[in-house]
């Protein structure tokens, strides 16, 4: 009994000491945060006019002037914060002018020193700021810091800074190679990061699309939308037969972006592809191209075993003018399965409503033709009520 009580008293003492330390720590942190907020607020008020001047003169030809008078520690920190905020919102010439200003204020040098000296959050803070400033001298240091960062979110922050500071494609290649090795499942985020670079990543995308490492292929495909060109069509067709499903789907997505990149025979092969995702993408893409020569193909897809293929085929038919509308009416009136008839009917209604709300003579004529077609198939005089 005595022993148990001794343990309990010991615990009470330790817990009380920890609570007191915790509360003191909290008070100190709170006091420090409030003080910092007050100092920053004062500095922000002082810098207000200068920041307004910078924003107003981003388009001007003459060099941006430096703030008048000496800058205190807080003044410089707040000014840096505000200019970085601005640099994150602008692009091209504006960003270059801000980069010059950062240079003249001596900020890249200061952050580069912090990057190599500090650890943890401070090191990331420096990396982030260097990235926002677009400081190309920082690229080698950032690359070496990336290799020592163990934290996953931290790696993405440094990778982004490298993309913003990259001197050439070699920097980007090195960064991606390292990231892919450690975070192989994030091609979209890596592509997003690459597209933030002032260096054109297109040559890298062309190189990786042919790469044997499917992780790089995925990064290339995710980065394509802004850099794709017709020369890659051949490579993309090869990827349709890749072992990795994700690669096949992404290749189809890129190929189907425009109807000009695929022949009718190729479209037919894609809409019969074993992957339902590719069949569904094909059905969806045809609607976007608005090419009514594919109406028979879509009419057949309405019987596909996969719900998404049927859904997208019906939606696309509704976008293919009078022929597509007629095909939907036929499906709705003849389908043996209620689900398919309902799917067609839902899209007929949507199409009728869209035509009714369409403007101009063409819209009125289109609505009239579709209503007439609807009457002939469903023998009703009140098609209007269907559109609500």
């Amino acid at each position, binding site marked *: *009994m005595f022993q*148990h*009580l001794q343990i*309990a*008293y010991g*615990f*009470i003492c330790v*817990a*009380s000491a*920890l*609570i007191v330390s*915790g*509360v003191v*720590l*909290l*008070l100190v*942190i*709170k*006091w420090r*945060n*409030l003080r910092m*907020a007050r100092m920053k607020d004062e500095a922000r008020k002082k810098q207000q006019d200068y920041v307004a001047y910078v924003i107003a003169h981003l388009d001007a030809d003459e060099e941006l002037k430096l703030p008048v008078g000496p800058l205190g520690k807080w003044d410089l920190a707040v000014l840096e914060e505000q200019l970085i905020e601005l640099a*994150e*919102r602008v692009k091209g010439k504006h960003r270059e002018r801000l980069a010059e200003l950062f240079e003249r204020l001596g900020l890249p040098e200061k952050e580069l020193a912090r990057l190599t000296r500090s650890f*943890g*959050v401070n090191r*990331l*803070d420096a*990396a*982030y700021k260097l990235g926002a400033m677009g400081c190309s001298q920082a690229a080698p240091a950032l690359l070496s810091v990336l290799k020592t960062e163990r*934290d*996953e*979110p*931290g790696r*993405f*922050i440094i990778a*982004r800074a490298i993309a913003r500071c990259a001197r050439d494609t070699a920097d980007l290649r090195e960064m991606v190679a390292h990231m892919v090795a450690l*975070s192989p*499942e*994030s091609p*979209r*985020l890596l*592509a*997003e990061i690459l597209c*933030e670079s002032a260096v054109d990543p297109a040559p890298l995308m062309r190189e990786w699309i042919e790469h044997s490492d499917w992780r790089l292929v995925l990064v290339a495909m*995710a980065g394509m*939308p802004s850099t794709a060109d017709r020369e890659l069509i051949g490579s993309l067709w090869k990827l349709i037969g890749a072992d990795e499903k994700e690669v096949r789907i992404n290749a189809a997505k890129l190929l189907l972006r425009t109807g000009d990149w695929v022949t009718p025979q190729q479209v037919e092969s894609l809409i019969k592809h074993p992957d339902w995702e590719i069949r569904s993408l094909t059905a969806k893409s045809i609607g976007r191209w608005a090419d009514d020569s594919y109406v028979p193909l879509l009419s057949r897809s309405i019987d596909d075993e996969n*719900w998404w293929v049927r859904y997208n085929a019906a939606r696309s038919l509704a976008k293919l003018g009078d022929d597509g509308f007629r095909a939907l009416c036929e499906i709705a009136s003849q389908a043996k399965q209620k*689900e398919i008839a*309902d*799917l067609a*009917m*839902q899209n007929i*209604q*949507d199409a009728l*409503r*869209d035509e009714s*709300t369409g403007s101009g003579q063409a819209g009125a004529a289109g609505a009239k033709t579709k209503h007439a077609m609807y009457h002939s198939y469903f023998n009703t005089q009140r098609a209007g009520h269907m559109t*609500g």
Partner: protein
Amino acid sequence: MRDLLLGYGLFAMYYVLVVNSIYLLITIFSHLNISSIMKRSRFTRYQSLAGSERVPPVSILVPAYNEELTIIENVRSLLALHYPQYEVIVINDGSKDETLQVLIREFGLIRQPHARIRNVVHSSPVNGIYHNPQYPQLYVIDKENGGKADSLNAGINLSHYPLIASIDADSLLEKDALIRMAQVYMENPEETVAIGGNVRIANGCLIEDGIVKEVKLPDKLLPMFQTIEYMKAFLGGRIGWSSINGLIIVSGAFGLFRKDCVIKVGGYREGYPGEDMNIIIKLHKYMLENKQKYRVAFCPDAVCWTQAPDTFRILSSQRKRWGRGNLKNMLEYRHMLFNPKYKVMGLLTMPYNVLFETLNPYFKLTGLLALLGYSWMDMTHAHIVLVFMAINLLFGYMLTVSAILLEERAFRRYPKMSDLAKLLGYGFLMFFGYYQLGAIWRLLGHIEFFRKNNTWGVMTRQSWKVETRQS
């Protein structure tokens, strides 16, 4: 008899020490992990991500039962999110009030007589689907009453996107909450099966047009206690649990899921409360049994604001419901307990949950009674009761201080010095009645479970405008 009472009382004391020590360990994990979260939160440019076509589209599911007072502001706040591609699916779960009518009126919705939904997971019959092309992102499903899980299943059946987010109809999402979760998802989309958001108490805050404009602590006692309770659970607990992939719950108020995984585990379980815990246990179980690499992540800077019950009647009803849901889940998945096949879930999370959540009221209340009985028989040992209570209080308060420390280090949502004093003061007060009531309500929840009472209980809402005016 005296020896028996003393022995049991001492057992209860060591129980408190062990359970709280595990919690302390988890809190330490939270402290270790918070810097990684801070890094992401501070240095990621969510603005540029919010405009990117590479961000995966999300279907937001909003189950609504008798939510006529809050639903419009909730939907408006969801339609104004900073996210590239998403849809909002409100599921009216056979409300007895005007929930459906106010939605139809406000958004000019039209019934789609031929619209059908897939039947990938089971849900009650759907009466109608409503849509207006002027709000292309918004769909409303009107269905027969079947409960929250059933409504979420109906939402899954209609959803068009690969990710689903479940949101309570009485909650408000911060504009960048979803894009913050998307960043976490995009860092590892293959392995991430679910991400939990941080739920904060909105009582006392200034709310305009469905947006929290000014963060303030609640003025009323019960919401204030719940603010601290949520802070402890979400920051002190869930950050730590997620760092060891042992998170057992993603709050029903706000979570993001991979739809294909949710479908693979059969969707949400109907018929019992605690569906938010149930879906996460099922996901863990499925992934571990199929030997797939996965993670259930937590994103504390993705914030959802919710109305906390401010009366004892509503709070007791909520806590009894939680008690029932927890007990049902623990009984249903008892085979996972101490089973090495289920790794952290089987060896730590589930046993901890049984010990701390399910059995907690029994041990604490009976332990106290045993020591009271012992002291009553021999008044010279009355101090033992005080020692027992002091251990309970000090260990618990230490965890409270630790959670406030996490808040102050990483988020600083309550900026004033008086806020800190209030948090510390009320955090202390909670040990004198509130926690004991919580234990009793949990116990009553268990009794209800065994009496097969599966009703949702009382849950009345008030408009966000009224809430703001009152504060």
